[in-house]
């Protein structure tokens, strides 16, 4: 009996020791931030004194946790941009980019320090797919497939206008923003014309996002607004289709004109 107890105790100690060895030191938040900072600086050839805004995005970390169906905390996610406010001894400098939005998203795995450049780089979509593989995702429900698509849209690795339009009112508002100009009066009349033509066509069309089992995974569909058409200030509603495989991998995103009902 005494021997047995001794054996169990030594086994427990061994287990604890192995556990402590196996639990590699986690990367600190500041080290992860530095990693993200370095990756973007090297892409942009920025020197250390040049401005780069780095912000941790905890909401996106939560979205990633939903994709993985795991607790949050394994990954740090940072949004980086050369636009923002720089405070220095001379005052506050506002950096803006007139001709485009230049933003980057970096994910850092705190366990092994691996990083994924999921926005702002030419191979960002591939990096996003790689991240999903590392998560070991197994998509077993429509909710999870939609969570993957939601994460994909939030990251937007290819910088597309693909915000979901969930109702005819959403469509109207999105087109109104598209038609907006300064002064507003000009855009307003163009928008009225657009709405007259388009509004009635899709008044009875369902806009809700759907996810259905398809080809071993799920097909997620939602409505987006296209770029403005020739001679019009607003675009046309399109149905975006994206296949989410069982392992979370994303298929090709395609757009087809929305059928009116």
């Amino acid at each position: 009996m005494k021997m047995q107890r001794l054996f169990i105790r030594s086994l427990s100690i061994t287990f604890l020791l192995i556990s402590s060895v196996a639990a590699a030191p986690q990367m600190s938040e500041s080290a992860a931030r530095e990693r993200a900072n370095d990756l973007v600086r090297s892409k942009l050839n920025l020197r250390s004194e040049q401005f780069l805004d780095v912000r941790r995005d905890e909401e996106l970390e939560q979205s990633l946790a939903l994709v993985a169906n795991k607790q949050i905390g394994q990954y740090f996610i940072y949004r980086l941009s050369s636009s923002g406010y720089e405070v220095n001894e001379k005052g506050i400098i506002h950096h803006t980019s007139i001709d485009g939005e230049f933003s980057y998203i970096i994910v850092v795995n705190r366990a092994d320090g691996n990083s994924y450049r999921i926005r702002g780089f030419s191979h960002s979509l591939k990096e996003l797919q790689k991240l999903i593989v590392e998560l070991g995702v197994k998509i077993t429900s429509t909710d999870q497939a939609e969570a993957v698509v939601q994460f994909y849209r939030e990251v937007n690795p290819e910088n597309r206008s693909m915000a979901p339009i969930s109702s005819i009112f959403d469509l109207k508002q999105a087109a109104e923003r598209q038609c907006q100009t300064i002064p507003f009066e000009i855009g307003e009349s163009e928008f009225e014309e657009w709405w007259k033509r388009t509004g009635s066509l899709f008044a009875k069309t369902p806009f809700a996002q759907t996810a259905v089992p398809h080809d071993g995974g799920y097909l997620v569909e939602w409505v987006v607004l296209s770029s403005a058409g020739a001679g019009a200030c607003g675009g046309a509603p399109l149905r975006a289709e994206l296949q989410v495989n069982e392992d979370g991998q994303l298929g090709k995103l395609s757009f087809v004109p929305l059928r009116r009902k």
Partner: protein
Amino acid sequence: MTLNQTFTAKEREAESGLDYFGARYYGSALGRFTSPDWSEKPEAVPYANLANPQSLNLYGYVLNNPLSQWDDNGHDIFYVTSGPSALKNEQTVRNSVTALLANPNTSGYLQQFVGNAPGTPDLVIQNGDLSAGDSKTMAPDGTPGTSTVQGNTDPNITTDGKSGGPIITIDNRTTAAETPGVLTHEAVHAGESQKNPAQFAKDSKAEAGLAHDKRPQEQRANAVQKAQGPAIAKAVKQIEKQRKKEQSQ
């Protein structure tokens, strides 16, 4: 990229240690333009159709104008010529600036940067990777397209409405042939941001929610690019021809 407007060129150089900050290098590189050979032999340039008589002679215009880009300090327009942000088509950029300064329809945008006292905001022109600003588009029939960014201007404005000196970045993919047009567009942004920094910052904020081509700032730059771009491109070719001729003599 942030530059503090209160530093003199010398201080910048000492602090950054970067050779391009030493605009004197630039000045010496441009020595051939300001050399007696160049200035003593003014020749007609392709602005004969323009109203300003001075514009009929590019070299006279640039060299005799106190607001020349090649002032004594030579640090009003920085061309990044070394390091990873070095200009890919440096000579075309220089020629484009010369053409923009000489053309009375565009000179106002850049003239305000040159000939100023040390410590006033300067313009920086560099190359860079702007691919992150590219966007994928869908036409109303679902056809995919891509919109690429060829140039960008960071007006570098402080919150109290002062200009820290804008930075023009030309995308690495922009070709030499495209450069004069891109610079014409960016020169409008840079010039407007310098003329009234506070207003420019206000407009940028107000227009941020608009589609890119709907922004008045963009529309103005596009209009100037469309109207003056071909003339600037033509002038750039002639300046280059002239430069090579001068070099061979």
